[in-house]
């Protein structure tokens, strides 16, 4: 689906990551890597470190921390928030929607629309799409909260996926101001099995066997309650879909790639980012890719993570044309082109404040 919104401006982005920095070198033993396999993994995936939340911290805690920082340091009143959309795969409870609990924790008015959206790596784009929809229906300010704490669905010893993941919770404030944004969104459920937690839903309920972690064919140790990724299929999907998506958005918005200041892409894999950058024929600084190396794959918070982690000076002081694209579980992908100007974007926050 392609949509042009004439209203909606990103005004603020705040991201909190887990407080524990873990170096991939220190996880060799845990995941059973030898020196050579670690070297291979570091080369292809460019892994260096990741940030993990403390035991007991939920994604909502990281997002509430980001939101409190926003309310305490930016000129926005809680009573002026019309909606809170929480994009996550790690809610506090199966029911009710965590966003509603967050409405109370953040002391937002009871007139706030609040609900959860179950999406991963495409979630930044989908969350902002919904926020723009509400804005164009008359809402004044929408807060989109995004992110995941991965220990709730990644196998502790799964060397296939767990070393890639970092915990983060962001909030993005969208306000009702004139601004053109061009969105394009896609879904393809035929690939749902390639990135999935097989047990725990109605289709495959929890039982005494679903939490038993065993060595799987791909070398990962996980249970059916943990996330499984078919790396080959996901790689093929990203290579096939993402470059076309970006070309389509540039075409749709009638924008030359030279006029885009940054292509902010979901930080899944260093090769995919490099591949897109080279295909676009733009310089590497236009496609930031350090986030996955330093913070890990932050799912729906990875694009906001780039902004707070690496571009906070630029976005706070300049008018920029950006293209964002997210892709992953579902399979689901989407992107948009918009203009941002002097947004509030502090440096990344590490850990939940006790204040």
């Amino acid at each position: 689906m392609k949509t042009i919104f004439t209203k909606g401006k990103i005004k603020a982005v705040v991201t909190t990551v887990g407080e524990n920095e873990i170096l991939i070198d220190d996880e060799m033993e845990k995941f059973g890597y030898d020196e050579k396999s670690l070297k291979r993994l570091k080369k292809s995936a460019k892994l260096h470190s990741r940030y993990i939340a403390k035991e007991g911290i939920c994604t909502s805690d990281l997002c509430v921390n980001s939101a409190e920082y926003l309310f305490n340091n930016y000129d926005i009143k809680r009573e002026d928030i019309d909606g809170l959309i929480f994009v996550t795969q790690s809610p506090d409870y199966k029911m009710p929607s965590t966003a509603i609990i967050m409405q109370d924790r953040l002391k937002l008015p009871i007139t706030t629309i609040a609900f959860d959206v179950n999406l991963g790596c495409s979630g930044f784009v989908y969350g902002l799409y919904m926020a723009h929809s509400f804005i164009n229906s008359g809402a004044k300010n929408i807060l989109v909260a995004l992110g995941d704490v991965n220990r709730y669905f990644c196998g502790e010893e799964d060397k296939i996926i767990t070393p890639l993941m970092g915990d983060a919770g962001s909030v993005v404030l969208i306000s009702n101001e004139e601004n053109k944004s061009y969105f394009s969104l896609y879904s393809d459920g035929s690939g749902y099995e390639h990135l999935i937690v097989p047990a725990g839903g109605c289709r495959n309920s929890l039982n005494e066997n679903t939490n038993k972690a065993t060595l799987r064919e791909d070398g990962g140790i996980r249970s059916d309650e943990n996330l499984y990724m078919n790396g080959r299929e996901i790689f093929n999907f990203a290579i096939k879909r993402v470059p076309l998506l970006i070309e389509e958005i540039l075409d749709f918005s009638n924008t030359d790639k030279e006029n885009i200041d940054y292509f902010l892409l979901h930080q899944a894999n260093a090769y995919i980012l490099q591949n897109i950058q080279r295909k676009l024929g733009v310089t590497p600084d236009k496609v930031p890719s350090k986030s996955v190396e330093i913070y890990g794959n932050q799912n729906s918070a990875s694009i906001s993570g780039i902004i707070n982690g690496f571009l906070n000076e630029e976005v706070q002081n300049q008018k920029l044309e950006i293209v964002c694209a997210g892709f992953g579980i579902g399979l689901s992908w989407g992107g948009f082109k918009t203009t941002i100007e002097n947004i509030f974007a502090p440096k990344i926050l590490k850990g939940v404040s006790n204040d």
Partner: protein
Amino acid sequence: MEIIEKAIVEINKDLNLKELEDLNDDTPIIELLDSVDILNLILAIEENLQKEHSNYIQVANEYIMDKNLSEFKTYKTLKEYIQRLINENNIH
């Protein structure tokens, strides 16, 4: 093809696979390597192509990790694929 041979020798430094040392047209590249190794091989080939031809040529495509459809199925299919890419990109 020297570009590919060099890349395979490079990644095999970490793998020490006898089959890659005794490379022949039937060597089943995709069966021998996992997705991390395939990615490292792609990176090495792209790097060698760029060094030799001063041009970026994308080696990965949407089928590259597919065991049945991948051009990395055997050493022969890989050589043919890279030659095709070189021809398509008009570099000599």
